[in-house]
């Protein structure tokens, strides 16, 4: 029994004994109540991705972790154990499930050719190969190795990068290594604006 089922049982118990105490106990009931919808769900802890209060989340997915079963989220609520948010979510956080499952989520790598009016679907390898080629050609042509004073500066200014402030630290560190390791100086994030 998990915590939620325990609370449910306790609450039900109090109500039942109160009704019995008043002499209102029904004689017999055959219709089973609707099963608690989270009962077979997997619970995962996370934090809201919007503002930086960092409210705790409980996310519920279906799928029993067996092979070829894709877990999908069907419910997200506040985490009552979280010391800041104490189970609450704001109107943004309350809609999180609809962001995760938004019809506007991107699903495949896509490419728009010069002058074209539409996307075409491509494979990841096609994307990596083409992007790496474009980057390398630009880097090789425009890398500034030394400045006028002869100091090694190794900066690549003709390509830049704008990075996300909703990515995790770990993704952010990989982003930083990728950017500076290649010599990029024009790197910024939402903290700038």
């Amino acid at each position, binding site marked *: 029994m998990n915590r939620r089922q325990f609370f449910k049982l306790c609450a039900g118990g109090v109500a039942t004994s109160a009704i019995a105490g008043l002499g209102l106990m029904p004689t017999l009931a055959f219709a089973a109540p609707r099963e608690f919808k989270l009962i077979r769900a997997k619970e995962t802890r*996370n934090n809201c991705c919007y503002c930086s209060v960092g409210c705790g989340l409980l996310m519920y997915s279906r799928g029993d972790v067996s092979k070829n079963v894709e877990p999908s989220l069907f419910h997200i609520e506040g985490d009552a154990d979280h010391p800041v948010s104490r189970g609450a979510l704001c109107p943004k956080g309350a809609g999180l499930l609809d962001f995760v499952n938004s019809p506007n989520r991107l699903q495949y790598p896509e*490419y728009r050719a*010069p002058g074209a009016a539409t996307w075409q679907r491509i494979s990841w390898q096609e994307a990596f190969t083409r992007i790496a080629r*474009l980057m390398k050609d630009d880097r090789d042509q425009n890398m500034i190795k030394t400045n006028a004073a002869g100091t090694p500066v*190794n900066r690549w200014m003709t*390509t830049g990068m704008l990075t996300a402030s909703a990515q995790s630290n770990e993704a952010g560190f990989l982003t930083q290594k990728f950017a500076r390791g290649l010599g990029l100086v024009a790197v910024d994030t939402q903290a700038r604006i």
Partner: protein
Amino acid sequence: MTNHWIDIKNADVVVVMGGNAAENHPVGFSWVTEAMQHNNAKLVVVDPRFNRSAAVADYYANLRSGSDIAFFLGLIRYLIDTNQVNYDYVKTFTNASFIVREDYGYEDGLFTGYDPKTGSYDKESWFYELDDQGYAMVDESLEHPRCVWNLLKQHVDRYTIDKVVNITGTPKAQYEQVCQVIGATHANNKVATFLYALGWTQHTKGAQNIRSMAMVQLILGNMGMLGGGVNALRGHSNIQGITDMGLLCQNLPGYLKLPSDKDVDLQAHFEHHAPKPLRPGQTNYWQNYPKFFVSLMKSFWGEAATPENNFGYEWMPKWDMQYDVLRYFEMMKQGKVNGYIVQGFNVLSSLPNKAKINEALAKLKFLVVVDPLAVETATFWRNKKLFNEVDTANIMTEVFRLPTGCFAEEEGTIVNSGRWMQWHWKGANSPKEAKADGEIWAGILAELKRLYAEEGGALPEAVAALDWQYVNPANPTAEEVAKQLNGQDVATGRQLSSFGELKADGSTACGCWIYTGSWTEQGNMMARRDNADPSGKGITPGWSFAWPANRRILYNRASADVNGNPWDKDRTLMEWTDGKWTGIDVPDFNSKLDPQASAKTGFLMQPEGHARLFANRLMAEGPFPEHYEPMESPIGTNPMHPEVITNPAVRIFADDKAQLGDFEDFPYVGTSYHLTEHFNNWTTHSRLNAIAQPQHFIEMDEVLAKQKGIANGDWVKVSSKRNYIVTKALVTKRLQPYVVNGKTLHTIGIPLHANYEGLTREAYEINSLTPYVGDANTQTPEYKAFLVNIEKAEAI
């Protein structure tokens, strides 16, 4: 935040200014109402609009957007005049007693050293007078005419209440009342906290807005205290963590600096960033800079970083000027940029002057958009009637749109405003072929490494050396990277437990020194979930990990006086008893020092160990704040000094200057803000949020609406010198006209959430209106005070 969310409950006075916490951080705001209900705290809200925070405030004062500094300099004058200064605190912990150089001065809106040709300052004179040992000279009696305290008194003396309210438009009685309520917290047992957000940063003098408030907190003795501090309520969920990661044009992780051309070699870089102490007996923590930097280089270049090659220092790019995003889009518009990678940032809908952003993107050879959602940036080339009218066939940019997972589909850490590093777990797979961000960089990098190995090219050794030795290089795990961020002993692989263990000889590797202790030999400290609060003061030491060193309240030495006695027994954080320090938090000072010695270095990151009322050479426009008008001033003058109207150190490009509007054509103050149902344009893709708030609108006051014949719900055209939008009008009492410098002013409130690719009703993006000019220090664009006009329009 120097403090954290729960700590707000310990405040006596909560000031919400430059933000609207009730609307934008509603769950965090529950700690404000907690303070009101259980600590008898008073809530003060100062804002141009009677907003949702104001609706529950004890005291509300309105002010014209862009006049906050005048508000604060008047407050500082009032505190000094009415003797509501915590002098013991000010003398112990601030640089009030420090003597400033003789050649420093201020006159008529300009500090010494201004060069009108370059529009910038030579800051040489903005510094302390030094003795022969290189230490700053002080006068603890505060009598020296050039000590910081007397210069400050002189500087604020011009800001009488009458002059202030003439600039801010605040009714005098409201202003006096707010001064009184805040002033009362100068007492040792009264504490105020300030909560702010983009309402302060998005001005051409945003950094000085915040400094003005920080100075007030020092004068009142509210820094380092339970229930006090300077508390930025940050925007994105991990904007704190990504700032820690140094993803800004001149930064590296842990607030280390990307080398500049002046740092000709590693030694020069250290000399510029590891300062010498400015007073005797200093902890001067940044003297450890070389240890942090070399350890970072080891995490970048791995085995290839050796003492012989200065740990790969020369492979790092050096900057010659600040390539912030505003400068970079200007360069892009001029055709100087070929490629751009945009990760999770809807830049077309958010940077100022959308037309300029469109023009710049169309000059790129290639654009790579990495995002979980179908954002407007990726389709900047698509013609969309009314909302994005472009000539698709003539836009020659190659565009890639790469799908990423989202928070629910990964594990890792995000850092909240209170510096809590909270670990989260994966609950679902990403849709179809979407990949994690790191996996995408890994894919491109693997190709680049292969190409450079095969073909050679520019600086191939850096590409080869870049360390990517993860178990699966194509998809590094969050656990591996988190351990790397914490830091390891290179020889043994042992996880370090404190940044005190870091070395400058290459024997330690560490991705972000302030994170050391977050993943030790004991395991993942960020995943801890003990919510116990043994002190009852909201310090939950077993919940996640707060950087640095799991410290919850920064500068906590200042919670006790020079002898180590807490200013307020009920707010004991650190206390000197029986010859040692005890307390409920991790000390933010060397706890081996006695109270007197540690008080001298209470702000231990500073080479003088004292908090700065006088900023020395750190700020672009002066060591003290001064009132300057927004770049588009609704009164066209500066009542303090008509010759210097706007911030003299602002950087503005010629084409943007030509697009600044005049108050005669655009008489109303435009200001942007958020609604509680939406997060920028992100949530327009979430159906529930789109249903809750489907239609963009602007807000205007009843007086102006009547003048213009605009009724509630009418369509209106709002225009600036840049462009226009057509939207609906909400006529409201929440906005009221102001009288400023003898003139009646009206504010047009403009919610930000407007786009055309989401699930909400299609709308003009409001960044069509905003001016392309930023704060003189940070280059954060001026979204909060610009000029617009308004008229009735046909429905769209």
